[in-house]
């Protein structure tokens, strides 16, 4: 991350919205449930021009109230980058943690956001409280996160935080890799059997932005909707393939899953494969070529007869 201005979140939001530099501000607010933050999406008054808005005291008060509700702390788990797809042609400011910032880079690489219309507010982060652990621990993904400070930002809120040493590969994945195939299958089957195909993982993932997901396509029909575990497997295996070399490991899919399916195991495995094989980390460098858009004549050939 290049050095950029350290600012106060609310002051910045107020200014960006007031000057019309952005039309939409995406940040966090306190959620109705304990230990949680919910997204807060603030608009300059819809459809109203800047001048009109200033003349509308109601709207102004509403805006001020919302800006005041903005927070950033260790409850802010959601990866807000996913919301950028909703405001594609608008001028947007967004609060991103280190992990989330990689999603922004990914989207820039895939031409899904217009950098000129985007203001990135970096939020250095020491990790998010794992609410399932009753607030005593940060999420595993955060413990293993290699980018506590955003990799791209126009402004930052707060000083950079120290980057702890992180394992090359999650110990849990490493342990799973060592198990015999039979037991790996049992684990996979167990995870997949939990899935209810609500697609929260997909809908929360910033890298999942197809207009029509293969899972929703009917010609041809790739994925069924039954409770036969093979349907969940087809969905997740194909989605994992689509995320190969693209998943930044933000953990949105795992945190958002209502059934606590541990997709991280599989995404982590592929991510470490891609890093090991092609030296590539998704979302770190906007101009880097994604590994699946390229090939090497000396790529591994051992698995082919």
């Amino acid at each position: 991350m290049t050095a950029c201005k350290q600012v106060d979140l609310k002051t910045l939001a107020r200014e960006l919205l007031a000057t019309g530099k952005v039309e939409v501000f995406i940040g966090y607010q306190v959620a109705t449930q304990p230990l949680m933050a919910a997204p807060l999406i603030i608009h300059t008054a819809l459809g109203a021009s800047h001048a009109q808005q200033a003349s509308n005291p109601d709207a102004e008060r509403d805006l001020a109230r919302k800006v005041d509700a903005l927070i950033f702390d260790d409850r802010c788990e959601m990866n807000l980058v996913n919301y950028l797809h909703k405001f594609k042609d608008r001028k947007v400011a967004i609060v991103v943690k280190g992990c989330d910032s990689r999603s922004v880079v990914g989207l820039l690489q895939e031409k899904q956001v217009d950098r000129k219309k985007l203001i990135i507010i970096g939020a250095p982060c020491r990790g998010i409280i794992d609410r399932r652990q009753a607030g005593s621990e940060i999420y595993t993904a955060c413990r293993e996160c290699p980018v506590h400070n955003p990799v791209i930002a126009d402004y930052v809120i707060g000083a950079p935080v120290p980057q702890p040493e992180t394992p090359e590969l999650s110990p849990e994945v490493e342990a799973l890799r060592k198990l015999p195939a039979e037991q790996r299958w049992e684990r996979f089957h167990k995870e997949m059997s939990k899935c209810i195909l609500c697609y929260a993982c997909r809908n929360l993932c910033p890298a999942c932005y197809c207009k029509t997901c293969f899972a929703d396509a009917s010609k041809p029909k790739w994925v069924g909707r039954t409770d036969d575990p093979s349907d969940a497997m087809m969905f997740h295996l194909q989605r994992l393939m689509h995320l190969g070399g693209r998943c930044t490991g933000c953990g949105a899919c795992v945190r958002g899953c209502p059934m606590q399916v541990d997709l991280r195991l599989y995404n982590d495995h592929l991510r470490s494969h891609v890093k090991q094989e092609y030296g590539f980390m998704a979302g770190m460098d906007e101009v880097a070529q994604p590994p699946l858009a390229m090939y090497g004549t000396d790529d591994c050939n051992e698995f082919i007869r």
Partner: protein
Amino acid sequence: MITLSINGVKVQAESGASVLGIARANGVWIPSLCHHDSLSDYGACRLCLVEIIGRGGRRKVTTSCTLPAAEGLEVVTESERLTRLRRLVMELILASCPQSPAVLELAEKMGVKSGRLETNPANDCILCGLCVRACREISQAEAISFGNRGVERKVTTPFGELSHRCVLCGACVFVCPTGSRLLNLAKIAGEEPRALLSRFDAELTSTGAISRPFPQAVPNVPAINPLACLKLNRDACGLCEKICEAKAICYQDADRLRKLDVGAIIAAPGFEPFVPDHDYGQGYTTNPDVVTSMEFERMLSASGPFGGHVVRPSDGRAPRRIAFLQCVGSRDVSCRNGYCSSVCCMYAVKEAIIAKEHQSKVEPTIFVMDIRAFGKDFDKFVERAKSEYGIVFKYSRVADVVRDEKTGENEVVFTDESGRLQRERFDLVILSVGLEPSADMRRLARALGVNMNAFGFIWTEPLRPLATSRAGLFAAGAATGPKDIPETVIQASAAACEAARLLAPARNTLVTAKTYPPERNIAGEPVRVGVFICHCGINIAGVVDVPFVKDYAATLPGVAYADHNLYTCSQDTQKLIKQCIEEHRLNRVVVASCSPRTHEALFQETMRESGLNPHLFVMANIRDQCSWVHQRDPQGATEKAQDLVRMAVAMARLAAPLKSVALPVTPTALVMGGGLSGMTAALAIADQGFKVCLVEKDKELGGNLRKLQKTLDGQDLQALLSATIGRVRNHSNIQSHVGAALREIKGFVGNYESALSDGAVFKHGAIVVATGALEYQPKEYGFGQHKNIITQLELGRRLEQGLKNEPSSVVMIQCVGSREEPRLYCSRVCCSKAVQNAIRLKALYPRADVHVLYRDMRTYGLREPYYADARDQGVLFTRFDLSARPEVTWNGKGGAPTVSVKDPILGQTMTLEPDLLVLSTGMIADSEANDALAKQLKVPLNQDGFFLEAHVKLRPVEFATDGIYVAGLAHAPKSADESTAQALAAASRACVLLSRRELEAHGTIGDVDAERCVACGLCEKICAFGAITLEVQRIGRSDRLLAKINPALCKGCGACSASCRCGAITLRGFTDEQIMAEISAL
């Protein structure tokens, strides 16, 4: 046809046919040893006994092979009585022939064990007479017959003497049911038959009198060898004609003389590999473990005689140490081949690598004089061979290969670099044989009226490398001298270019176009599939139950009609298919027969003739994938055929008509670069009647050619330069833009629009990239710091005028800036240049010492004699290793440079003090300019910054992106004549495009669904042909960035579709839906 009953089952048969044959055809097994489908029967072995039920139920036993079928005949093939009788017969046969595996197998199947009778182990003939019948009926030789009587009866020649009537055809041996040892051609004819050897397999395998020349022959049909055929030579046999159900055999076909009126002739008769004879030494004719590289090539091939396993011919064991001996029949005046064969070094390295890949324990050593890896990127390949595969190169001359008959080991005797005689043992020795003019080259040259060179290759003009001594007659390829594949391909295109120059006015004058009925619009029609299942004579029906598959096909959803045909590809069936399409309103057709690779086009033609889009046709391959490969499993093959037909029908139901798109072509070429290549290409294109826009970045034309004086063979390059510039300037079709650069380019194949920096804007259809390269400016060896250290180019220039002072000593250092990091490539021309200047020096100053310090002298091809000449003139050549490169120093300001280098023969450092130190500097790519142009044209560069062609061997002058071609130094370092050839080749390829009024984009292309595309750009990156770009497009009322596929550039590989996460791209003709339907149908 009559009807008879076999075991109570009514079967139809030809009247008079043998009951044995009918039973077998109907799946009823009857034992027999003396029957052969191609020979008459006479009931010799008595095993095929059956019962006939006569009037009143009386049963009569008879041999079925001699029993003619008759109306109402009732035959029983299994009964207690028959079993008893047959067993008895078998017991007798077994007693007379106790050891034949075939007989023992049959006996076991019949439940007969030997025992009761006395046996004669020496005998293995059951006197069935098949051999006698074969000799009479097939060979019509009557060399053998039965002799003697009773227990003395045997098969023999008349009077037991050697027969002069035997033709050594071996039919007797082939048909013998017991594989009798008594049947010995040596005893019949007095000589052993010689196998017909397969030329393709380097005579390592034998072949038949009818065979396919090689697996990928075009056309891929068998041919009769007229030298071996009994029918053609003796009017005997004729078996093939009887067996071929397609009636394809025609003995009357013979060579015919035809007269053609042509405007130009291209001779490309190729070469022959050198055959080391007995006098050549190295034991090829006597030592089984010395093989030629051609033989080794076949041995390595997965489709070769050993299935790709490397084995020693002498004992069939896997060799560990293998030696390649280079320059066999090359660079060797003793066999009058004083030239270098150019390709042997690289193929030896390739063969060594493949051998190593097949068997990692193999340790290859290559004995070389020089490693001549002068081609594009060849040195990298050699380096990989050394570092990754551990292949050892030994600089040496091999004297002989000596075989130790006891151990089977072979000793390679050679002199090493220091001149000492050495010996090393190897399991297998490969002679890297060179290239020679073909044996009848002299006859051909005489017939054509063209001159040959000293080595018997066709002579061509030094600076017009395709032109022979006779106008209008061109020669290409290895016929004019040894060449690697890319050079050959370049020459072929270049020769076509030279011919096309002459023929351009006659273009399109002898063409007739075929017309088709208008295409039926099937939109809205319910799917009606017609399925035609082919018997292919017995090729399919002999294994697959075709009528059953046909009945099955009729029940499949969407199938409106199903039929089976003897030959679905026959003309009659095409008519029938057309009728069926008409009658049954079919709108999809499935043919289940052979490979779409060979027959799809034929059926698609039928579709078009019936007014249906050819893409509404799908094939199921039930021959190559079923009957031919599952001959022993008719049920499995039939089930598989059902599945394949079901999958094909599922595919066909979703088939949609595909339209091809016609795009206009602007008949103008843009040639980038005004050097020798650019100008040559421009002239060649302009001469064919097309406009050319020639763009040169410098203020004047000529490029690197301006710096060159003479070629190795003394041709005046400056004369060539001025002549060429003159022609370019005066050519009405060429517009030159000097001092100009390409500012912007838009469009695609056939339809470009370019803007130049001088303001010119024009449309064009093709682009030739001939932007040249730069001379390397060395930093090594004190260049630029001492006035007596100059480059080879500078020396050439000075020699033209004569040196100011007579030198007493000149040292040349080769490979300056080439063949080492960061430029791990050979600049190809420097060795020849050094030899040229050295000879010139020696001619001007005979007393001067001329020393060339080199790593490998790469005077390839016909340049080699000049290297020999230089040595004869007293030029001294000293090899150095990259690890011990020469060192250059000098004292103070005025001192002469001192060169010290290790002399490999003396093993000591040698110090030279030349008057002139000449550095042979290589060529480098103009990386910056190339990079910029490559980005503009969206074509790739290799890692050294040279333009990367579509295929390094087979498509050396074109890019993967259609419409863009490359020539000259922009592609890789090369000599002036090679640049000329490549320029002509590029022009030729460009003219193929420009001569079309329009391009037809085929139907099987990618298709973007705007509703799904998110413009992530993955497809654009993956497409190898530059066919996909992201463009803002109007969709409904909004402008959106979307992937766009250019139908003219798309090749239909579908990589984009398989990579598109959003499913926004599909490949017409192979849509996701179609492929998934096939998967689901299984």
